[in-house]
């Protein structure tokens, strides 16, 4: 080392620093107690500075064992169990399960009950997307859209509460239709739980307000250059990854896959209305956000059309008081606000199902995180995670 020999002093000018600065990665625990994990999700991230080299989600903190509990509950009791899986869209969880049981028993649901189910499902979708539309900018730092969207969401929840009595867990679905009467006794039987007076007029007024807040959010968030700088081109999901991991719902349609279960499956009479499927092409956080705002507008138009065409009629088909489902297996899926929600019901006769497999949307949506977050910065990870709109109850069941 000639530089060292000359008088033992290192001549800085010719001391070639060839060692590559290798700092070892830091293990950072994001969660389970963290503001942007939408619940109890723990991400063990190997972080080089702020760049993520490897991410390992740890889930199970919210695992309530719904599938095991479903094996000891009678069919009417299971609806109270499953509307707590994705607690932001409570009503929409029950519909596929109830339709599965109806198809197993071969029951025909009256038209009016199907329309009421459809209206309440679309109202739940609006309320779910409003939660997303407001909590996502909060992940990026803007606190104001949260208040506007929740102000309108309260009106939508009041509508649901006026019909069903509950806001988050309405428990209004029954096998064969919707809850027909307040009780089983002589007087309560004829207290019919149809839509309360003034419901249509209140709904139309609320729908105008929801559209208003969508425009406000457009001005405040979608048009904002800072939001665009934080979300365009961030967390891009190519279509083949979407298919391989089973990512569904608005996340799938934001990556250019034109597939909406409401157009393919026939749980609810969606064919009586025309609405278009919102599809965007480049699958980044910005597209996932705009897809959902557009879907709110589509749902509003569906609700308006449904109110115009709702037929009159009974609320529930003739169903024996003690429900015994004939042996059989069926898998029914529906377009839940967060993605494809499906129930694989195996019945062996009797009042209690033999096995219920619950396919929840957020479980698959989250499994993409390790792939998406490679090489991302922490703020990008927070932005990408927020854009998937998942809820831990849906992930852990």
């Amino acid at each position, binding site marked *: 080392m000639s530089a060292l020999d000359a008088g033992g002093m290192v001549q800085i000018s010719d001391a070639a620093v060839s060692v590559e600065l290798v700092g070892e990665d830091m293990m950072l625990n994001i969660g389970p107690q963290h503001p942007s994990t939408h619940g109890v999700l723990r991400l063990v991230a190997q972080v080089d500075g702020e760049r993520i080299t490897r991410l390992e989600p740890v889930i199970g903190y919210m695992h309530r064992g719904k599938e095991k509990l479903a094996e000891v509950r009678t069919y009417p009791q299971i609806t109270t169990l499953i509307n707590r899986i994705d607690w932001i869209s409570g009503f929409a969880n029950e519909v596929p399960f109830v339709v599965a049981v109806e198809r197993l028993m071969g029951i025909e649901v009256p038209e009016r009950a199907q329309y009421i189910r459809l209206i309440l499902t679309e109202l739940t979708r609006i309320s779910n997307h409003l939660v997303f539309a407001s909590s996502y900018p909060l992940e990026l730092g803007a606190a104001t859209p949260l208040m506007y969207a929740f102000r309108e969401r309260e009106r939508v929840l009041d509508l649901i509460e006026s019909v069903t009595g509950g806001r988050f867990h309405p428990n209004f679905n029954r096998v064969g239709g919707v809850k027909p009467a307040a009780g089983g006794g002589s007087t309560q039987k004829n207290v019919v739980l149809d839509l309360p007076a003034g419901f249509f007029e209140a709904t139309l007024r609320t729908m105008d307000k929801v559209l208003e807040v969508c425009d406000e959010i457009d001005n405040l968030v979608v048009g904002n250059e800072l939001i665009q700088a934080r979300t365009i081109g961030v967390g891009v999901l190519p279509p083949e990854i979407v298919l391989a991991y089973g990512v569904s719902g608005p996340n799938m349609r934001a990556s250019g896959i034109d597939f909406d279960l409401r157009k393919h499956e026939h749980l609810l009479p969606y064919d009586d209305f025309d609405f278009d499927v919102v599809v965007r092409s480049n699958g980044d956080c910005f597209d996932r956000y705009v897809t959902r705002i557009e879907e709110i507008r589509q749902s509003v138009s569906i609700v308006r059309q449904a109110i115009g065409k709702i037929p009159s009629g009974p609320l529930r088909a003739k169903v024996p008081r003690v429900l015994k489902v004939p042996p059989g297996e069926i898998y029914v899926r529906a377009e839940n606000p967060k993605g494809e929600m499906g129930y694989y019901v195996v019945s062996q006769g009797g009042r209690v199902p033999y096995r219920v497999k619950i396919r929840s949307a957020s479980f698959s949506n989250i499994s993409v995180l390790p792939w998406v977050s490679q090489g991302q*910065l922490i703020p990008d990870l*927070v932005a990408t995670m927020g854009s998937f709109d998942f809820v831990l109850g849906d992930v852990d069941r």
Partner: protein
Amino acid sequence: MSFTVELLVKVVVVLAIALPLALVVIFGELKVSAHMQSRVGPYFAGGRWGWAQPLADAVKFMQKEDLVPSSADARVYKLAPYVVLMGTLGTFVIIPIGPDLVSRNLDLGLFYVLAVSSLSTLGVLMAGWSSGNKYSLIGGLRAGAQLIAYELPLVLAAVAVAVQAGTLSLNGIVEAQAQPWFHIGDFGVTLPFLVSGQIIGFLIFLTASIAELSRIPFDMPIAESELTMGYLTEYSGIRFTMFFLGEYAGMVSLSAIAATLFLGGYWLPGLSNDLLDWVGPLVVIGKVLLLCFLFIWFRWTFPRLREDQLQSLAWKWLIPAALVNIMATAFFKVVF
């Protein structure tokens, strides 16, 4: 009066103006942000419109347990808030609130202010490093990078003002803005620097001061949704109040400097000098509250930028613009 007594009086007067102003700004932020989000804001603290909320918060924080994490570097951890507060309160020394109402008219006033205000960067780094928690470490690193990156545009924008005013002393700058630009009949029209040539300088100064205070859209060091509270994560009790007060006192001090440099300090066209002795402080406070409203308005409308976007904004946009601004001011100064 001997020097020390006079010094004490000045310190008391300066604190008597700065700290209550910071409390007023805290209350302003609570109320304005609430009404911007269609809610009411503080309501019960003090007779149904909540004026006593900042005091209630202060008392609440004081009786909170003030714990020092075991893995923290205790001495540095305890000292950090006071370094930040010292750096912020030090800037009130030379802000003129009247023709001869200033605690010390340094002729190197501008140079002194910018030097002292960068002291709080040191406090933030101390807090980030000594809290012994990964999130505050990341917050500290971000703070270090951000505050240093935005010192430059802040200083360069102020240099342009010094070039146009021809002096570094803040009193001199205010008097420079008091000279009439042109005459309509015999009435001399005076224009604050904001209007006369320094519009770009003002925008750069404003952006840089938002970044200095690490407020949204530049609040990476205290990014609630990523780093829980950044370098403030481990602080609680009276120390957190010091930081909290430091942030709002910093807001008041930076808007006071901006008001002096760009909006003409205590000067209002058409007021005589001795009248200004009395009205001057109100004019300055009015301008400071106006600028604080601007900070608050930005905070509750915009999201926060990502770390690298923030740096590229400073190095690629603000610093070149500030340099061009200085050249242009010098050119016009020479030509006219």
